[in-house]
């Protein structure tokens, strides 16, 4: 049965330094929540606290109807997959899977049944008698997931489970985790600093910085409507193109004035009654090539072409800086070409220059 998790004004620190302060987070039953953020922002710290592996200095943690703030890890109904796998090196795969069940005093035949089922789901049957040392990285990873799976927990905690795998294996296991979530419907909290993982897996993403949530929203919302400059810069590859300028009101309309020129903003873009400094953020796909689109444009020169396969990233140098554009995979062009770039100002994001907050 999926259960909700609730963190209420949680504070966690090591010694005198507070890593997380006054932290609130409500995770719905059955939700797949991804904690995303740069290294050292407190993701693992938070996950350890939810697991009961480290103490809070303040606040409460609720799992379902129970206040588990002071509960032991084993009483919280959680399974955890560690960044470093943490398989028991002295036990074979079967023992690794069954250890938790044995500790819980489960009957032998029930243990065997569960291990069999888990091994089948994760395709681990051929390796049951092997020690972790004799497994490949992907197999170890699956054992680590199996160890949480076998116990039929309500909540799964994943701490960067795929971070040390090669790209192919990562994609495969990412899909497997997604499938697993769809089948089990359990609540899952997943830590990563890989934005592709975050975007593809999450129901909601919590983007963190220095122990503070910057934005908590669906992947789509986070990508298209970043709440501030930090989120805008953190999500998306290549990063959002930023143009500083000002919103200028004139004759009932609002204009965006920058080194690139002064452009009239459509009604769907933020309006302003007085002049204010802003930064406009445009995704690479919000800049188009050529003047045919009728969008306001400016001149630039192609400086680098990166063919990614399905699409091509174009880096263009203008007088006021470098812009990245996303072009189709079959884009034909050469470095040094003179081009005109058009800005899709209607769909761009606008941030206050001083606070960095979205307008």
């Amino acid at each position, binding site marked *: 049965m999926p259960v909700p998790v609730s963190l209420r004004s949680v504070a966690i620190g090591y010694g005198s330094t507070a890593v997380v302060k006054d932290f609130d987070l409500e995770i719905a039953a059955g939700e797949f929540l991804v904690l995303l953020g740069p290294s050292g922002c407190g993701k693992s710290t938070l996950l*350890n606290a939810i*697991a*009961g*592996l480290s103490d809070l200095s303040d606040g409460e943690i609720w799992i379902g109807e129970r206040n588990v703030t002071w509960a*032991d*890890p*084993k009483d919280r109904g*959680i*399974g*955890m997959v*560690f*960044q*470093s*796998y*943490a*398989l*028991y*090196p*002295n036990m074979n795969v079967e023992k690794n899977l069954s*250890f*938790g069940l044995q*500790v*819980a005093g489960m009957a032998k035949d029930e243990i065997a049944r569960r291990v069999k089922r888990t091994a089948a789901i994760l395709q681990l049957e051929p390796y049951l008698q092997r*020690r*972790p*040392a*004799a*497994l490949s*990285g992907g197999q*170890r990873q699956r054992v680590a997931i199996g*160890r*949480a799976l076998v*116990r039929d927990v309500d909540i799964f905690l994943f701490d960067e489970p795929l971070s*040390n795998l090669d790209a192919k294996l990562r994609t495969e296991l990412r899909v497997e985790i997604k499938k697993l979530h769809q089948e089990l419907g359990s609540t899952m909290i997943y830590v990563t600093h890989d934005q592709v993982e975050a975007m593809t897996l999450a129901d909601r993403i919590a983007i963190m910085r220095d122990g503070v949530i910057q934005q908590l929203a669906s992947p789509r919302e986070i990508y298209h409507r970043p709440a501030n400059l930090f989120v805008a810069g953190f999500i998306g590859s290549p990063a959002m193109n930023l143009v500083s300028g000002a919103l200028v009101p004139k004759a009932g309309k609002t204009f965006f004035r920058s080194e690139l020129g002064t452009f009239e903003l459509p009604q769907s873009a933020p309006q302003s009654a007085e002049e204010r400094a802003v930064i406009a953020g445009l995704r690479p796909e919000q800049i188009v090539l050529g003047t045919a689109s009728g969008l306001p444009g400016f001149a630039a020169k192609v400086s680098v072409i990166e063919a990614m396969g399905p699409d091509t990233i174009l880096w263009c140098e203008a007088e006021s800086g470098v812009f990245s554009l996303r072009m189709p995979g079959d884009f034909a062009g050469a470095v040094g070409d003179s081009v005109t770039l058009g800005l899709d100002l209607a769909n761009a994001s606008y941030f206050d220059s001083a606070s960095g907050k979205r307008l």
Partner: protein
Amino acid sequence: MRDPFPATARGQRPQRLTTARIGLYAFLLIAALFFLLPAYVMIVTSFKSMGEIRSAQIFSLPQMLDWSYWLEAWSSACAGVNCNGVSVGFWNSVKITVPATILSVLLGAVTGYALSFWKPPGSKLLFAAITIGGFIPLQIFLFPMVRATAALGLYNSLAGIVLVHVVFGLPLTTLLFRNYYAAIPVELFKAARVDGAGFWRIFYALMLPLSLPMLVVAGLMQMTGIWNDFLLGLVFAGRDNLPMTVQLNNIVTTTTGQREYNVHMAATVLTALVPLVAYFVSGRWFVRGITAGSVKG
């Protein structure tokens, strides 16, 4: 300078005997001789008759392999008025060394484990105190320890001498195990906690099997130390439990009649034999990557 890129280079690099290498071998040879020569003299002497010994050719081989002095050393050499050889001391030493080694190693493993993973409040201070305690010469504790064992009614008893060895061994074994466990990834411990295991379960199902190499090393160090101990055995064991070292000393220093060098040498070799054998037997346990495969590789 030698040419670092000879045009003929191909396949295995030829071994060259440099001066540094010759020096190194010479040093190792001398070091080996330094330790082996006395052992050699002792062993050959233990087979020689007193007549042969008196001829003062200490490096010469014995004329025949006569085991009778070994037999005498084992079962009938005299220490004062008791003529039972070192055999009584041998069994006393076994009775002291076996429990004291096992207890001090296991207790050290438990305390090291607790300090490394459970980090009770004040564990840093505790560990510092233990470390410092390990470096204070034990003579300082001798008198308080006598009073303490007497108060417990354990002075001059087998249990008493075992207790004393365990207490004096604990700082070292705790230190060894704490540092050994500090190198084990803490996620392993966390995973076991999430799996529901408690203090003792994690210890015997996970940490103890992982510490096999340290158990062997610590066991060996403790065994050698306790077997070779003289002072504590003399002070705490009591007349009936005197360890082999003390009895060896009593035999060698007994001054009735002539000094039977052959018997004394045999008795000494017998006393040294146990740690020696232990080292030979356990050598292969030393180098072993037991944690291989626990983390990403």
